[in-house]
């Protein structure tokens, strides 16, 4: 980076005479679109959060009342809590599986290319498709899960996986782990390319065992990539909607009611648009804080 900007300095002066405007012309389309399609709607969302409105003719200023209401209702707080649990478990699952499989695939043994293609598949299937495959697998009457477990005597009678407060949350988390680990896997594989085999060999000669190699050398070496990945992954799953909506719609008894589903219902089922907008603002702040905290914790010694 340093050396590059240095080169630019040498290279630049002759070019600047062409037109000072050129660089701005290159970035203009993205800038314009981001302002139009992201900044404007986001600011408008913040604006809506201060009103009691049906988005039509009725707009009555509410000040901070929407925020007050959502924080005193235990609904929203419960949703946030469920979302934290959900995002934590899902991301932890992604990292355990992603790192393990990444280490395995990185060995470039025979057949790993085939395994790599298979193991990345879940990332490619649409959320809707994944949700419905698992809903079908978990079907209490005709589903493969119950039939398999019954046949092997692991359960006594059919279980309604998605309809019981005992199982629904776990099933939803497992499905989301299944969908999302390939992203971590791909990033880990990429990062592992940068771990030099000389260092590993040297450590091995010095008598390091596999566990020491992993925790003392490999993981620290890929930490910067893991840090970026963990932030994106947490924020990504914190706001997730589709899979959970199609599997359980937040039920049964709200055990899977993550915050996106709560916002959607508040807006388009109860038509409390101001309140929904306020919830969205709170989620944004939480996502922002999460990324700040992770950046701080993970980048201390870079």
């Amino acid at each position, binding site marked *: 980076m340093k050396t*590059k*900007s240095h*080169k630019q*300095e040498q*290279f630049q002066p002759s070019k600047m005479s*062409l037109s000072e405007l*050129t*660089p701005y012309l*290159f970035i203009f389309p*993205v800038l314009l*679109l*981001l302002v139009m*399609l*992201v*900044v404007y*709607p*986001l600011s408008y*969302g913040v604006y*809506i959060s201060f009103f009691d409105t049906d*988005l039509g003719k009725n707009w009555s200023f509410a000040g901070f009342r929407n925020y007050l209401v959502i924080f005193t209702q235990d609904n929203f707080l419960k949703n946030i809590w469920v979302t934290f649990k959900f995002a934590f478990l899902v991301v932890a699952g992604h990292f355990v599986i992603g790192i*393990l*499989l990444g280490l*395995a*695939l990185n*060995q470039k*043994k025979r057949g790993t290319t085939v*395994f790599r*293609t*298979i193991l990345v598949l879940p*990332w*490619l299937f*649409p*959320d809707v*498709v994944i949700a*419905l*495959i698992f*809903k*079908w*697998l978990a*079907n209490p*009457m*005709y589903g*493969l899960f119950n039939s398999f477990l019954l046949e092997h005597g692991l359960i006594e009678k059919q279980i309604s996986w998605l309809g019981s407060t005992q199982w629904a949350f776990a099933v939803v988390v497992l499905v989301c782990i*299944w969908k999302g680990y390939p992203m971590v896997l791909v*990033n880990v594989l*990429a*990062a592992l390319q940068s771990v030099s085999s000389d260092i590993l060999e040297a450590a091995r000669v010095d008598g390091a065992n596999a566990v020491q190699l992993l925790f003392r050398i490999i993981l620290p070496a890929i930490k910067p990539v893991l840090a*970026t*990945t963990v932030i994106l992954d947490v924020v990504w799953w914190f706001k997730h909607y589709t899979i959970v909506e*199609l599997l359980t719609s937040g039920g049964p008894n709200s055990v899977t009611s993550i915050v*996106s589903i709560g*916002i959607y219902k508040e*807006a388009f089922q109860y038509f409390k648009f101001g309140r*929904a*907008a306020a919830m*969205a603002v709170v*989620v*944004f702040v939480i*996502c922002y804080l999460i*990324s700040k905290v992770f950046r701080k914790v993970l980048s201390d010694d870079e």
Partner: protein
Amino acid sequence: MNKKRSGMINNVLTYGACLIGSIFVLVPVLWMVSTSLKTEPETFAIPPRWIPETVTLDSYRAMWVDYPFLYYFRNSIIVTLAAVAISVSISCLTGYGVTRFRFKGKESFLGFVLLTQMFPSVMLLVPYYKVLNTYGLNNTLIGLGLVYISFTVPFCSWMMVGYFKTVPLELDEAAIIDGCSRWQAFTRITLPIVIPGVSSSAIYAFVTCWNEYMFANLLMADEKLKTVSVGIAELNGYYKIMWNDLMASSVVASIPLVIGFIFLQKYFIGGLTAGAVKS
């Protein structure tokens, strides 16, 4: 001796992990394919059978004839391709502009792009609903396309900046000394080199748009304007869910992504990583 044994343990662990992982991935996928080839009675057979006794392609016919999937696919293809083309091409411009020039506000611009990547999409739900309504774009493919562009532009720009960084500045310099204009240097010299980056941003954008459900479901009320994701999810809402038809449409909806990925994965795995490591 000891080395041989640890090598064997390593082999067992490696292949064991890959094998178990693959089983967990393939069982649901194969079950989807198996269900899609069944007749209605066999779909609801107890206990379920892996290999149907009568294999039929009826569900694959029904999705085009009995359900409006022709429209759904047309809409998904139009919206996705338009959004991918627009976001990837303007991201290339940004990548070039940011890496080849020194200008006021560059750092703040990059910070701004990064920030727009972090907001939760659910935050846009209510405002987009209202804004698109105001401009009469609710329930139109253009409106949905705009929403998708807003999802893909930040990440694609970020990736393309990472790619253009890897191309030495001397190349442009040489081209311009040889008489190329700035634009020619971009299109003829630099852009061809970052084609792997272009294809991995394109895959990323394609997957994001093709798979999107929440906004498509909210914004597209007209039956003929719905996308594939919404169409499939709707089959799940019927009183009696025809799982064989549903799984057939799921297979067809997933095929473009899987085939595209298998062809482009060489670029993609290398490509995504260039962006990831650089950032």
